[in-house]
């Protein structure tokens, strides 16, 4: 019987939740020896890969071929050359496509493994990309130190990849990382533009819709929609209570529907008014619905980090998000109502869902 599997990366390890009906869940964890897990996915090979980054022991990719019962880990090759002047502070993003496991890192770099995570090689440090010369200056690295915070390998070619450089830019390559093009046209910023004004945009999360031309974005400054595959962006923030947020997700079957979790900006970065809330648009951002049924409040001050929301692919898809205070919520009716799946978890950094079996 197919199982829905939630991979919940936290500051204190990976947690795995499984359910046959997406209502009753069993949970295992903390796994990966409680290493901080920034991202976890189920690869094309069916294995779980978890990007772990310890302040004490460095970064490593953990792998399980049996849904978390046993694990191996490796960081062989997951480093910069000694004479490069670069340090691998953290790995924060994963993607698996075309038989390759891609890993995103700070200092800004993209690695890949072609042997199921046993060894890694450097694909690109985005040399020559606009703004590249300042990204790796420690004084310029954004807090969080995610480096490449997200990776989308395209279906058409293993050389066609989109990444987010935290705090700087969406970058695209179609030659396997030899050259990179920024894709930020239309975005705005509330701070001085860098020397090359094609970059310097704080893109938090991208959410591609089922239509290749339609992408959504939650930015530090605004919520956005693209109708040309993410080359240019139109703002759709009007109607939302704030313009700041991290996590978002697109409907798996309807290009017009998108979900986001906006937050108060500044130091707080919790959901507005002490009410846990998810916002939904069904018309690509022309109007918004605030959804709170089953979500705690008032006096519930929680945040959701950029990888903290995910949805499955089923017709009656499930939508899930995890908070930085350790709560995990699920909706089976497109956000109209929610249930709490777990509480008292360590701070949640990422949520991914897959259907297995």
């Amino acid at each position, binding site marked *: 019987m197919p199982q829905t599997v939630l991979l919940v990366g936290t500051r204190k390890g990976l947690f795995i939740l499984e359910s046959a009906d997406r209502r009753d869940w069993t949970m295992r964890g903390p796994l990966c020896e409680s290493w901080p897990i920034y991202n976890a996915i189920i690869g094309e090979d069916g294995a779980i890969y978890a990007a772990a980054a310890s*302040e*004490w*022991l460095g970064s*490593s990719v953990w792998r399980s071929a049996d849904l978390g019962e046993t694990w191996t880990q490796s960081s062989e090759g997951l480093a910069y050359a*000694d004479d490069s002047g*670069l*340090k*691998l502070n953290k790995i924060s993003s994963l993607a698996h496509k075309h038989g390759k496991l891609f890993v995103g890192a700070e200092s800004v770099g993209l690695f890949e493994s072609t042997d199921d995570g046993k060894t890694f090689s450097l694909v690109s440090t985005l040399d020559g990309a606009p703004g590249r010369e300042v990204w790796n200056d420690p004084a310029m690295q954004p807090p969080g130190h995610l480096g490449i915070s997200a990776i989308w390998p395209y279906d058409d070619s293993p050389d066609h990849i989109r990444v987010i450089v935290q705090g700087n830019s969406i970058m695209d390559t179609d030659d396997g990382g030899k050259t990179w093009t920024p894709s930020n046209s239309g975005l705005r910023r509330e701070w001085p533009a860098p020397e090359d004004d094609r970059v310097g945009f704080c893109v938090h999360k991208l959410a591609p819709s089922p239509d290749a031309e339609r992408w959504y974005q939650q930015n530090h400054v605004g919520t956005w929609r693209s109708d040309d595959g993410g080359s240019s962006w139109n703002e759709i923030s009007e109607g939302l209570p704030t313009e700041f947020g991290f996590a978002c997700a697109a409907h798996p079957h309807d290009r017009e529907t998108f979900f986001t979790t906006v937050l108060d900006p500044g130091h707080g970065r919790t959901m507005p008014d002490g009410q846990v809330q998810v916002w939904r648009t069904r018309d690509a951002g022309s109007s918004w619905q605030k959804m709170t049924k089953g979500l705690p409040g008032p006096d519930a001050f929680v945040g959701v980090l950029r990888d903290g929301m995910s949805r499955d692919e089923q017709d009656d898809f499930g939508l899930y998000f995890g908070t930085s205070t350790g709560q995990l919520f699920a909706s089976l009716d497109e956000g109209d109502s929610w249930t709490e799946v777990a509480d008292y978890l360590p701070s949640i950094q990422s949520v991914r869902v897959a259907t297995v079996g």
Partner: protein
Amino acid sequence: MFADLPRRVDVEAPTVLEAIAELDRRWPGLRDRLCAEGPSLRQHIHVYVDGERSDLATPVPANARLDVIAAISGG
């Protein structure tokens, strides 16, 4: 992570770096946990040769005691 790594290991190596390299030969991946690019010791990994704080280039005399301590703190 290295389940069969004992608390005390005998190695022959002229420097701290080469001692770590020998440990890595026996327990693959251990070097990455102790060292970052440079190479350099990771910030929270402290090494002492006969009680003296050391770095990767520090010589290790014969019969010396080499302590590798992860200065793990915080919550």
